[in-house]
């Protein structure tokens, strides 16, 4: 039986998620044994054109060229999976969404007319059908291996959707919000990181994006009551997953509130 062909494709991103795949070392060898990696510029000079059985997409769509390139990859791929917050939610670069891109261009580049860029950084799923989204900034390498293994085995991947809080509790981490008053997005953020930040005494930054059915309004309302300013709360949501609808809507709601008050 022929091994499934796997391609890894990069869009606007920092390469950190692809590095997670490379970091998986021994698991990667097992993966490499089970699939034929035919397109992975970060790791190999071997570059083959499609069709691909599995396409891993890192990064968001930020240029007209990329908006077309992803269409071709979709046509070439049987199973298309996005990896990381850029690909699943637009990434940190989506902070510019809603701002004046032209002004940024003039401020940064000497000859902005050479630069072709879209007004928004958008997740892959806004452009093509995505078969599976793997969250995280960066992704968890074990989750990536799990998804690839499950694909090969023909079963649904196990990537839990619970909150970060559950992981804190399983590992015995004391809640930083309750015990120290530290702002933390854990209650509204999806698991995946094994609750690493609170275990280092930091609040959660929401790297894995909103948990299912997150109650952002309640979390903000309570944080504001405890002394967080609306701007601080809005900023905490304006990170790697700023364009994820739940985080975006709440930071927008808070921003509108601030403007109303001024």
């Amino acid at each position, binding site marked *: 039986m022929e091994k499934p062909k796997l391609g890894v494709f990069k869009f606007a991103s920092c390469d950190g998620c692809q590095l997670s795949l490379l970091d998986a070392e*021994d*698991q990667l060898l*097992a993966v490499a044994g089970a699939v034929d990696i035919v397109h992975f510029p970060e790791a190999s000079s071997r570059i083959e054109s499609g069709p691909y059985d599995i396409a891993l997409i890192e990064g968001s769509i930020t240029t007209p060229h990329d908006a077309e390139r992803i269409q071709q990859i979709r046509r070439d791929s049987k199973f298309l999976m996005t990896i990381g917050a850029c690909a699943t939610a637009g990434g940190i670069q989506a902070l510019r969404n809603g701002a004046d891109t032209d002004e940024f261009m003039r401020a940064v580049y000497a000859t902005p007319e050479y630069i072709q860029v879209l007004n928004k950084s958008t997740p892959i799923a806004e452009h093509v059908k995505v078969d599976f989204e793997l969250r995280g900034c960066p992704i968890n390498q074990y989750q990536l291996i799990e998804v690839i*293994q499950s694909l090969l*085995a023909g079963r649904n991947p*196990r990537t*839990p*959707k*619970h*909150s970060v*809080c*559950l992981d804190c*509790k*399983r*590992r*015995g*981490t*004391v*809640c*930083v*919000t*309750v*015990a*120290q*008053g530290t702002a*933390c997005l*854990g*209650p*509204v953020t999806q698991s995946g990181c094994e609750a690493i930040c609170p275990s280092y*005494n930091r609040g959660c930054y929401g790297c894995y994006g909103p*948990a*299912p*059915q*997150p*109650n952002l*309004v*309640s*979390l903000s*309302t*309570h944080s504001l009551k*405890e002394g967080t300013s609306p701007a601080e709360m809005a900023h905490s949501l304006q990170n790697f997953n700023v364009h994820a609808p739940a985080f975006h809507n709440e930071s927008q709601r808070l921003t509108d509130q601030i403007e109303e008050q001024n």
Partner: protein
Amino acid sequence: MSEGLQAANAPPCFLSKEQFAKLFKVLRALEYDVIGPTIDQEAIVYDRISSIDDLPRGWTDIQEPGKYRLEKRNDDALFGYVVGPHSWKQNLFPPVTTLSVADRTDEGWQFSEPEQDAPKFAFLGVRACELAALKIQDRVFLEGPYIDPQYQGRRNQALVIAVNCTQAASTCFCTSMKTGPRCKAGYDLALTELPEGFVVEVVTPQGEAVINALETQIATEENQNQAEAARQQAVDQITRTMDTTDIRDLLMSNLEHPQWDDVAERCLSCTNCTMVCPTCFCSSVEEVSDLTGDHVERERQWDSCFNVDFSYMNGGLVRNSIRNRYRQWMTHKLATWIDQFGTSGCVGCGRCITWCPVGIDLTQEVAAIREKQT
């Protein structure tokens, strides 16, 4: 520990703090793994401890809905706090544990129990509400038609050294749940802390074996009066109440009460209340496979009825809203638990109130439902 062996009328003894310091050595000699209160991550947690110096000497906890802070006491009390984020369930029903092992052989799959020796714990500093919680989890894991072998192995060997509360937090309501603050049963030794030492009640041979290795005196009447006064202080400090009159029927006949929608606006469905609850026992099992897939372990992890996927069935979710999940948690804890196990699932420790990131207080939710019954 076995309740059947309680020597009802053994007179309490007095254990000085100097002698108490030697308790750790005695427990080690009896091959106990001592778990007790210690300060970590800005809280009094339960962890492995090896000496009196590990105890939170001179510290207390201030608690309110959604808030917990450590504060310096003006004395050297060793047990001058209430309850913290941890509970003993993490030792008897660990957050992650292997249930079974599968190996692929020439004859097909072979299944076996994981190889593991049950640790022999001594729990030091168990509060009255926590004794009640242990008893409730015993009902779940030991007294139904099926026994959980891991819980059983750990529980049977555990030595329980209770410590009576001498103060209460604002979140405590054990008096409403009739579980405390006085330790009445379910322990091997019960201590009441006084400035110079402890009044100790010994009720089992296991407890006796420990106390006999230490020098004690018969507790004087003054010791006993002092201890009673200290315990009374805890009773007097409890302000929170929950009216449990007909609570099962109250909740089960108000399943469509508007209060469920009200609490759903505040609840984050983050699972914290269920994780800190000393009686919540829900779990799920994951397949943990090596890369070849020939060796697979089934790993049990704490789970929560607040998780979206918890009620997944046939491609859909039964409880697909925060309202329905909060209703499931509270009706189970306070109502249907009684049908299932003959006891409330709540011991009044107040953890779910303190450790809720937005400070939801179940006693107030119950009161709101009671006030306007549908």
